[in-house]
């Protein structure tokens, strides 16, 4: 399945990437990531724990010789943890030369959402909501579009750190 | 058209190569000084040479003279800078086919190359 998804990604030519989103699920909710950030999708694999990091940073993985950090989207969004299974995926995203893997329940598909179907998110600044950039409508579902920059934002990190202390 | 780039500055070699490489010109070799230029000319027999003037070991003009002795058909373009008028005159006297003045852009270089065809 993962191979299929990667094939799907490769089909997206650079200039046709606009307005395309990779969707994935966390429990009942559907999320989307702007496809331009996504470099690949891999199945769950052994994660090396790095001490003294918050729960949502699960550790590091070996991605063909490249070491990247992985975070659990459920824990990051303050949701109950779920045991990993064969549907669990790691979405590898690349922002400002920072690679990170995001562990999600399952990857769904790549969809088009036109600009007029994207609206600002409801003003709820709690839990995972603050990482939502906008809300997209697609046929009969609602996609919560992630703000990848914010997901990795340093300031965000500092805030979290101080609230954890 | 097969071309040789002669320049002691690697930047200039890269620059000229990138300006013409996609066109119908093929850079068959590069040389870093006049002496190398003569040696490589004998080995690769390019049709056109872009020749820097100020180089260590053997100047572009000396190399031009030698190369012109070796071949009457090879076309040599002197690559010069402002202030080198006297040297270019001398080069032309010794058979340089054309010259170009730094800084130049792609279009100028191509125009000089085109003019040397046939």
């Amino acid at each position, binding site marked *: 399945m993962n191979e299929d998804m990667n094939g799907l990604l490769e089909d997206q030519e650079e200039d046709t990437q606009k307005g395309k989103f990779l969707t994935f699920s966390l429990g009942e909710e559907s999320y989307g990531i702007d496809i331009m950030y996504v470099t690949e999708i891999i199945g769950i694999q052994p994660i*090396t*724990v*790095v*001490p*003294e*990091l918050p729960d949502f940073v699960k550790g*590091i*993985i*070996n991605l063909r*010789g*490249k*070491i*990247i*950090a992985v975070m659990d989207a459920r824990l990051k969004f303050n949701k109950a943890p779920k045991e990993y299974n064969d549907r669990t995926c790691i979405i590898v995203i690349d922002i400002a030369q*920072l*690679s*990170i893997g995001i562990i999600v329940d399952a990857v769904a598909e790549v969809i088009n959402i036109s600009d007029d179907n994207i609206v600002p998110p409801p003003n709820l600044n709690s839990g995972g909501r603050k990482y939502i950039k906008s809300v997209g409508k697609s046929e009969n579902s609602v996609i919560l579009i992630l703000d990848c920059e914010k997901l990795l934002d340093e300031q965000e*990190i500092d805030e979290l*750190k101080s609230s954890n202390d | 058209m097969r071309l040789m780039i002669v320049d*002691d*500055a*690697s*930047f*200039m070699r*890269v*620059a000229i190569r*990138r*300006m013409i490489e996609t066109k119908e010109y093929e850079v068959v070799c590069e040389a*870093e*000084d006049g*002496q*190398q230029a003569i040696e490589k000319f004998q080995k690769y027999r390019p049709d056109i040479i872009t020749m820097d003037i*100020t180089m*260590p*070991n*053997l*100047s572009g003009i*000396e190399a031009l003279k030698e190369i012109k002795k070796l071949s009457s058909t090879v076309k040599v373009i002197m690559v*010069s*800078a*402002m*202030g080198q*008028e*006297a*040297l*270019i*005159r001398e080069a*032309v*006297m010794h058979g340089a086919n*054309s*010259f170009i*003045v*730094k*800084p*130049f*852009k792609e279009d*100028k270089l191509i*125009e*000089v190359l085109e*003019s040397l065809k046939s």
Partner: protein
Amino acid sequence: MNNSYIDEPMLEAYVYETSQIIETLEQLMIQSEKVGNFSADAINEIFRFMHTIKGSSAMMMFNEISTLAHKIEDIFYVIRENQGVKYDFSTLVDCILESVDYYKIELIKIRNGETPDGDTASLTDKVNDYLEMLKEDNGLKKTKKEKETKSEKDQKYYIRPSKKEDPAKYYKAKIMFKKDCEMENIRAYTVIHNIVDLVEEVLYKPSDIIDNDQSIDDIRANGFLMAIRSTSSEEDIRKYLEKTVFLESLDFGEAEEDWYKEFEVIYQDQEIHDDIKIPETSKKYIENQKVKKEKEDIKQEVTATTTQSIISVNVDKLDMLMDMVGELVIAEAMVSQNPEVVRLEIESFEKASRQLHKISSELQDMVMAIRMVALSTTFMKMHRIVRDMTRKLSKDVVLDVYGEETEVDKNIIEKIADPLMHIIRNAIDHGIEDGEDRVAKGKSKQGSIILEAKNSGSDVLIIIKDDGKGLDKQKIYEKAYNQGLIYQSIEDLNDKDIYRLILHPGFSMKEQVTEFSGRGVGMDVVAKNIESIGGSVIVDSVLGKGTTIILKIPLTLAIIEGMNIKVGESRFTIPIVSVKESFRPGSREIIRDPDGREMIMVRGLCYPIVKLYEYYGLRTDVKDYENGILIMVEEDDRSCCLLADELLGQQQVVVKSLPNYIKRYKQVKGLGGCTLLGDGSISLILDVGEFELSNVLDK
């Protein structure tokens, strides 16, 4: 930049080459300054350097940079062409060094994709004034004028004196060159020079294209006019003229003989034949080149072969290559140590895999060797520091350099230049006394700094030794005590401990901040920088005699010999240089201090214990000393024992840094990086220095 032809590889080539030239130029200045003059070779070289920078920078549209280079080129042109010319050597060196500094800054901007926008006005003025003075002092301006007036006399050329039979026809031609084609006079000359075969005679206007560069303006405004007498067909001549490079327009047609004669009269003849006069300067230039050529014939052969065999490679590519070789080594281990294959005990397989292992380790060594760079460039930079410092502070200090051929990894070299610079500045500023003081103390008036590099096992030692006033133990102690950095009494500390205090953050001996050192940046930054590359700093001193600072630096950051250990599910790698020994504590005596900290006695010495599972909050079944194993680690004479579940073995590992995301998040104490083990799993590399080590106490 809106110039489509300037792309990344060109920019890279430009920055690389220009930086190299600037560096060489700087060294050349420092060397020349020592001798007190420029050798003929140096003058030639500087001229060529500036010529190259001028041309390359102009191509890149960095006009300010190009203009400045042009001016300096002019200066050296004058010096080169006029033997025995008098010039102010030290002002010129200052000018060039100032330009070197300017270029360095601009190159950094260019490298970072910014516009080189430094203001050169004052610098260019300075250089310009110098050039004017140079010409004036040596009466060179006058000769130029003479030349100009002389050239006005040269009026007409005609080629190939007329033959007896003359069925020739007359033609007139007017050539307009394209805008910006530059040197129109020489272009016109090219036309005339090559038309010889086609014509009996050619007259042209302006006639002074050879000697007078002012003719360019005339050609630009009025075009280049030719009166041709020829037996060739009109078509042939037209074809030839049409082939002129950068031809904007051509007026060509047959003319009356009368018109031709008129043209001839206007431009009074003065016969000059084919071998056109070469202006004085360029003749000299050519001779110069000839002499040089003969002189360098032998040298040339050498350089021709050596320069060709060296290529420059982007460091990123080397990093990538090393990563890949690292993976290859891992993959090799995975294949050859695959338990199922090993169980089969196939002799041919073992033989083949041994061969594979040999090749891959040789490959690894080779990749490492490629990355090694001599320290000489970094050391050479220090000459400049010493020069500037001694001038500003009016001190007399000589720098002697040894072992500059010692090689270290490229990544490391970049990180030691700044610390080195700081130490040397400190030495001159605070270490070495004024000349009079020195004489009063019975030392030589001239201070000395020795900079030396040498190999020592898997480390490189860089030693900076000055013969200045040395460190005052008592003062350092008092200062540190008052600043609350230590609590012990001075008797409890050995010399090394006291000197080490100057590396402590926040420690500063000097209240007065001088221009060079100080500025709030102290030795602690030096120590931090060196430690960040896995090195350490040792300070030693004799009061009144001088100070020695030793930087201990690993040869490479990339590959270390490591001891792999296991704690629960986690694996760690300890650099083997830090491991003293490992042992099962068994029932050996464990001591607890009042705070509950555990220690162990080994051969009469008492070592603190760090239980890794506890330290990092890991889950494991091995918690007692009966089943676990202790690894005694040491750094800078300080030690502790780490408790792990078991040892997994010793191997070479490729050091990778932790992902930036994690580093940005938190600098996890004791973790120096990570590495991949043979089975593809990740092991965390422990940085022993970050654990709570203690000076092992005699009990």
